[in-house]
């Protein structure tokens, strides 16, 4: 533990950091690490997106054209795993690394060396995951939820996936321990809990959820591993185990996990909306309470993912009611955002556009979620494209759009340069159009009964699938525009003023120059 001591304040007075590649490998600076997290997650986003393009290319027409069924299954599985664990989650940790110390007036994260370590675990895990395509038998192909018996029977690819999940889990746990400690112990004087920006609040609650459920995921993949190689039978019916138990334990992790992916985006949107409405956030305290409430409720609804796995009626009703009640705090949040915009002097720069797009489309995703929570309907739409449409509305137009909003919002502070507003708006409108083209029709496909994770389909689904694929290719290419906008901004954007958004009120805009200096808040600011 002595190393941690020396690290925390030895670092503050050390301006001589190595240059070149060693700067990035050895860095303990929260801004460098945040940047690496963001680039890593964008790279993984492109990898997962390429897999998605493969899936949609195969589904462009009925029949098997491009991907053999085995490879198609590997594509759907790895697309899910990479997007969830490689793209969305690290991107939010990247935002936390950059923004949490700036927003609470801390000089750095609490455990700077551990921070470096938790980042560098990620490329290792990602390499394991992607390289599993090239081992005999190919990558894991049992879906991103890796249910047994498929995951106990698969080849070497499944082992690589299990190790990769272990490493990613360790990285997330270390990251969240770091974030919790930073938020609770390192706030500037006067920054009481109830004065913290909402983004910090949502991350505090998310980090607690992570340390609550990530170890359970680690446990369940460990059980899979011992089932595969050490003769235990946790999930093997022949040995007295139960594959349905895997689903219960997995979703005990899995349902809080979906809130882990959405709560920080609530936080980002709650920063962006007040800034561009030039009004303080309506109902700040309600927002904090609603976030906590969602986090607690998320731990008692997991079995709504398993209504068709066999469950007594009492259980189905319990999970159905509990799930539908989550709509209450979520609704409180949506109303608060709308009320924040009400009579504000709004302007529609790119971050605001993405935030409003988020609210609009997330509400659609939320409603289709309530529909899926109703047991008789869920039994109909289980494992169909309706479910695909639902969770892409909350994960792509929810989490991803909020990430875009945050990236455009904070990039001037990070780089000292403005992005190209016209291109940013193009990025938003193209994303909005192609996203809905891709996923809205999937509601119809699902209601008509098209099953998910199947490379071929009946002729009556052909038209909607073609529309969806065209939308997907458009959405995928649009994200290259985002890459161009960001590179263009970093290399040749216009110089940004200290506070480019006149409605911004948080510490990083009011107390720090632009770009944020390498070492910030070495003397804590005083918050009134």
């Amino acid at each position: 533990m002595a190393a941690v001591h020396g690290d925390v304040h030895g670092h503050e007075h050390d301006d001589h950091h190595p240059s070149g590649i060693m700067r990035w490998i050895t860095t303990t600076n929260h801004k460098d690490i945040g940047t690496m997290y963001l680039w890593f997650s964008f790279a993984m986003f492109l990898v997962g997106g390429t897999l998605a393009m493969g899936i949609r290319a195969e589904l462009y027409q009925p029949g098997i054209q491009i991907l053999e069924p085995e490879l198609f299954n590997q594509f759907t599985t790895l697309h899910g795993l990479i997007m969830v664990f490689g793209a969305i989650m690290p991107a939010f940790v990247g935002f936390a690394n950059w923004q949490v110390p700036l927003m609470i007036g801390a000089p750095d994260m609490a455990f700077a060396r551990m921070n470096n370590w938790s980042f560098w675990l990620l490329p290792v895990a990602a390499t394991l995951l992607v390289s599993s395509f090239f081992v005999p038998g190919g990558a894991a192909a049992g879906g991103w939820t890796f249910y047994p018996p498929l995951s106990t029977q698969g080849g070497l690819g499944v082992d690589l996936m299990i190790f990769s999940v272990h490493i990613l889990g360790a990285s997330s746990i270390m990251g969240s321990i770091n974030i919790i400690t930073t938020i609770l112990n390192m706030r500037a004087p006067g920054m009481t809990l109830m004065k913290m920006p909402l983004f910090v609040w949502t991350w505090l609650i998310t980090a607690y959820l992570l340390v609550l459920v990530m170890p359970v995921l680690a446990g369940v993949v460990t059980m899979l591993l011992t089932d595969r190689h050490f003769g235990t039978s946790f999930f093997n019916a022949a040995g007295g185990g139960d594959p349905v138990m895997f689903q219960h334990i997995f979703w005990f992790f899995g349902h809080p996990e979906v809130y882990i992916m959405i709560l920080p985006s609530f936080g980002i949107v709650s920063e962006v909306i007040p800034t561009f409405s030039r009004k303080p956030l309506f109902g700040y305290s309600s927002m904090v309470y609603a976030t906590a409430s969602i986090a607690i409720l998320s731990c008692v609804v997991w079995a709504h993912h398993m209504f068709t796995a066999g469950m007594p009626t009492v259980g189905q009703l319990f999970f159905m009611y509990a799930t539908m009640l989550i709509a209450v705090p979520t609704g409180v949040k949506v109303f608060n955002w709308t009320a924040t915009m009400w009579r504000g002097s709004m302007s529609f720069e790119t971050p605001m556009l993405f935030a409003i797009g988020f609210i609009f489309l997330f509400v659609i995703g939320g409603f289709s979620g309530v529909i899926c929570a109703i047991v008789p309907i869920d039994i109909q739409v289980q494992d169909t494209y309706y479910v695909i449409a639902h969770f892409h509305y909350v994960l792509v137009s929810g989490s991803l759009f909020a990430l875009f909003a945050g990236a455009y919002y904070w990039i001037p502070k990070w780089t000292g340069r403005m992005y190209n507003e016209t291109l940013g708006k193009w990025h938003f409108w193209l994303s909005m159009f192609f996203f809905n083209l891709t996923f809205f029709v999937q509601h119809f496909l699902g209601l008509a009964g098209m099953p998910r994770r199947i490379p071929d389909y009946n002729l009556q689904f052909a038209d909607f699938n073609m529309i969806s694929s065209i939308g997907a290719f458009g959405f995928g290419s649009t994200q290259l525009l985002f890459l161009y906008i960001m590179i263009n901004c970093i290399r040749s954007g216009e110089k940004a003023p200290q506070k480019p958004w006149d409605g911004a009120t948080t510490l990083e805009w009011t107390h720090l120059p632009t770009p944020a200096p390498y070492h910030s808040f070495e003397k804590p600011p005083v918050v009134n």
Partner: protein
Amino acid sequence: MVENKSIANVLMLKKLLIFTLIMFVFGFALVPFYEKFCEVTGINNLLRPDIQAKEIQVDESRWIMVEFDANTRGLPWQFKPLQTNARIHPGEPVSVMYEITNNSDREINGQAIPSYSPRFLDKYLKKFECFCFTKQTLKPNETRQMPVQFVIEPELPADIQTVTISYTFFELAAGVSAVNK
């Protein structure tokens, strides 16, 4: 001030690590908890004999076709029912013999796992005796006949005319105890 902060940070780190460890153990604790929960609530009651609580009325106005199925997975046994089906009245006690033969020259432990079609049959099927309640050990080239005794309750929905009862034998590694002792 700074020194205090580092100490507080390390304390927090320790607390959170302990919490992480507790949650990791909790993941494993869910396994016995799940089994206990299923036992107490009577879900998943496939491998324990039922007790005949009340006198079951035989519904002679109705016939049900019961099909018997037998499979082995990964062990060199021959396993078959002595009759492939039976036409019965709901509520009538039925006894069926199954035969297993160990075709190999080593002693093997096996456990049979039942499976029903339609899936909700287990609510109406009361089994009083079954070879699936315990593990079966067969010496080299031994043949054994074993009974299953059961009743299908008359509450079985009227639109069901045919049901299937299937057993699959899996090999148990030596030394592993039976599923339900």
